[in-house]
């Protein structure tokens, strides 16, 4: 009981800090009366043509991005399911995990490198705007959707395939009776997740948006605060964004059918063979080329660009160290907070208080509905009248990124930690194995792999963040993503490409390094 109380106190502290970081900015946004220039009528967003346009474009691009990502992903996932012995299968599935750790701004550079003027498939000026946004969003979300949907084929019992064969089902009937029922369980959750990711996407829209015509709520919040100095409009936009995200999250929660798949670079195990044919092979190869091409093209451009000139600047190295610093500290705080929350929820679960345990997990993940830019703008509005927020850039950026990483920690570490707790808690009690010894002999050996994965994920996400750092960063405190954005703004595209390559290498090195250093060698 004493241990449960200790866990409750630690988890309570974590939740209090979480509430302070998430809810205080919300309160700041809601407490509009303190904002100079605010009129109550500002909340009537439907009277503002600008806000209506921004709202429509945000939803429209998210919807199109979702459809363009998920519909082809169904075909590609099915092709992967059918090609269990495809020689490049493992390699391609690893490649499909890459966009999970590739910073958005790096992907943008890849997209520009392929589809920009002078690229392999030039779209000219029409790249900037909806086309570019869609291409970058599909680059990120098609592989994610494939990896989330593919395991659904593995849920089909082997006997069902055999029965289908014995009953003489053709390809359409197999799809109708075996594959679609398995797929439709996960599809709404995956679609909503991709919709949400595209709705809250910041770096892609900021860099490829191409003007007021192609601005989303996230970018409009940033522009209101940093360029137009219009906090009142930022508040309206942030509240709109928050409302839509909450609505999508509630829908997702109601469906609760997102497949439990680990976000890892390890490829999933082989499923049952459906049928092999040329079309499936072509689909897999086309998707592989689509994902690999931006990274490859960017690599070639960077190697042929002003590599030594960029590497020789102190600004780059300062940004690199800042990026690393932010990434590692965000990972440390996020994993620590997730660990304490999950320990408490596992104890509650074992004590039969499952709904309370679920509530603790949910509290840790609820931040998922609050886009980082909304938190950032809330903090900006709340803190800027009282002190120089730009001087506090590192703690603020680390804190927000750590909080934003928490849902990933809960998702990566939660199942293993709960299982571990349920299986060994009573044994530990009978052996009086607790505290440091329990961690050393039980939890560390059994949980280091998901711990490593969680830390690697949060670090990669924080290092790739452009939203929060763009809001609070200064040229002096720029991270690599902000430096790339500044270089793009100055039309130094070759320089930005080289910086993007370095950021990519740094992100991958840190991801693999943390996963290996904490998680140890895996047998996968």
């Amino acid at each position, binding site marked *: 009981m004493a241990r449960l109380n200790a866990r409750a106190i630690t988890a309570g502290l974590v939740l209090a800090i979480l509430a302070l970081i998430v809810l205080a900015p919300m309160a700041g946004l809601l407490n509009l009366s303190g904002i100079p220039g605010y009129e109550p009528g500002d909340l009537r967003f439907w009277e503002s043509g600008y806000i209506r346009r921004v709202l429509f474009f945000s939803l429209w691009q998210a919807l199109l991005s979702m459809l363009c990502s998920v519909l082809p992903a169904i075909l590609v996932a099915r092709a992967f399911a059918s090609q269990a012995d495809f020689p490049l299968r493992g390699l391609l599935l690893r490649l499909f995990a890459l966009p999970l750790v590739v910073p958005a701004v790096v992907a943008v550079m890849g997209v520009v490198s392929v589809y920009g003027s002078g690229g392999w498939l030039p779209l000219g000026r029409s790249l900037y705007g909806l086309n570019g946004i869609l291409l970058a969003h599909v680059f990120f979300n098609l592989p994610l959707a494939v990896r989330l949907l593919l395991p659904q084929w593995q849920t089909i*019992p*082997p*006997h*069902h395939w*055999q*029965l*289908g*064969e*014995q*009953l*003489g*089902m*053709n390809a359409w*009937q197999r799809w109708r*009776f*075996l594959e679609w*029922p398995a797929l439709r369980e996960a599809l709404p959750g995956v679609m909503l997740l991709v919709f949400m990711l595209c709705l809250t996407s910041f770096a892609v829209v900021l860099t490829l948006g191409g003007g007021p015509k192609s601005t989303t709520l996230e970018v409009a919040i940033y522009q209101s605060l940093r360029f137009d100095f219009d906090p009142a409009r930022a508040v309206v936009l942030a509240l709109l964004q928050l409302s839509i995200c909450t609505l999508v999250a509630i829908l997702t929660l109601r469906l609760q059918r997102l497949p439990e798949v680990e976000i890892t670079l390890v490829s999933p195990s082989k499923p049952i063979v459906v049928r092999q044919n040329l079309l499936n092979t072509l689909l897999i190869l086309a998707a592989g080329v689509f994902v690999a091409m931006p990274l490859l093209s960017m690599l070639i451009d960077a190697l042929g660009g002003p590599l030594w000139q960029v590497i020789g600047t102190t600004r780059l190295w300062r940004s690199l160290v800042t990026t690393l610093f932010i990434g590692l500290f965000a990972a440390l705080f996020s994993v620590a907070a997730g660990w304490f929350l999950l320990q408490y929820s596992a104890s509650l679960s074992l004590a039969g208080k499952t709904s309370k345990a679920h509530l603790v997990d949910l509290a840790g993940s609820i931040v998922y509905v609050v886009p980082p830019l909304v938190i950032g703008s809330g903090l900006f509005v709340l803190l800027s009248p009282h002190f120089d927020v730009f001087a506090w850039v590192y703690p603020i950026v680390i804190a927000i990124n750590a909080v934003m990483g928490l849902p990933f920690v809960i998702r990566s570490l939660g199942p293993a930690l709960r299982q571990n707790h349920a299986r060994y808690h009573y044994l530990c009690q009978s052996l009086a194995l607790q505290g440091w010894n329990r961690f050393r002999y039980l939890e560390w050996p059994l949980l280091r792999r998901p711990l490593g994965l969680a830390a690697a994920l949060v670090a990669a996400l924080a290092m790739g963040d452009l939203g929060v750092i763009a809001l609070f960063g200064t040229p002096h405190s720029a991270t690599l993503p902000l430096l790339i954005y500044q270089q793009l703004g100055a039309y130094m595209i070759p320089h930005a490409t080289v910086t993007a390559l370095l950021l990519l290498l740094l992100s991958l090195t840190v991801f693999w390094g943390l996963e290996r250093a904490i998680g140890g060698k895996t047998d996968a």
Partner: protein
Amino acid sequence: MLEIKQLEFAYAAEAAPTMHFNLSVAAGEILSLIGPSGSGKSTLLNLVAGFLAPSAGQILLDGIAIETSGVASRPVSIVFQQDNLFPHLDLYTNVALGVDPSLRLSREQADAVAVALDQLGLSDLRRRKPGELSGGQRQRVALARVLVRKRRILLLDEAFAALGPALRAELIEVVKKLVRDNNMAALLVSHQPRDALLASARTAFICAGKITALEQTGDLLDHSQLAEVRDYLGAV
């Protein structure tokens, strides 16, 4: 009559065969197959069903070779221990799939499905989903589908293993009637010697990929002199 002649199977294409089978089952007969785990009982069923390809030998039904026929065109129905039904479809549809996977049934075919459900005591449950049924009811639905498929060979792969003794005995009686009435040749794989006793006049003992004994069920279970049979039964 189902005849399995010099049937061989190798796990790797170029490896030496690890399984050899010879047996025959008369029309209207259920032959039980017992033996330790991994001995080859389910492999034999998979060879007959066409899920696995033999490396040599023949499978004959009334003298006609079927071992090269595709899975769907073989005169075979199979019932597994679980996952016989599609969970998102109601009972009627699950059974109707056995007639035509396009579900475009003629009036006669639809009537046949209704009759099969009636014979298995499932008429009132026709719109229920498998998840709403007991284990025994689910196996009855699988048997109703066997009935509408009208195939001459029935394979039961641990089909009653998940059921209690009374229910197993009840379903074995259902299967016996089904086999007798439809002149089927059936192979029943079970880990329970009592199932063999209830279902079959004859039982084969399979060990290490071979049929080492094929006798009257009572004799095999009570008086076998073979050490592996005694070991197996002693271990049950």
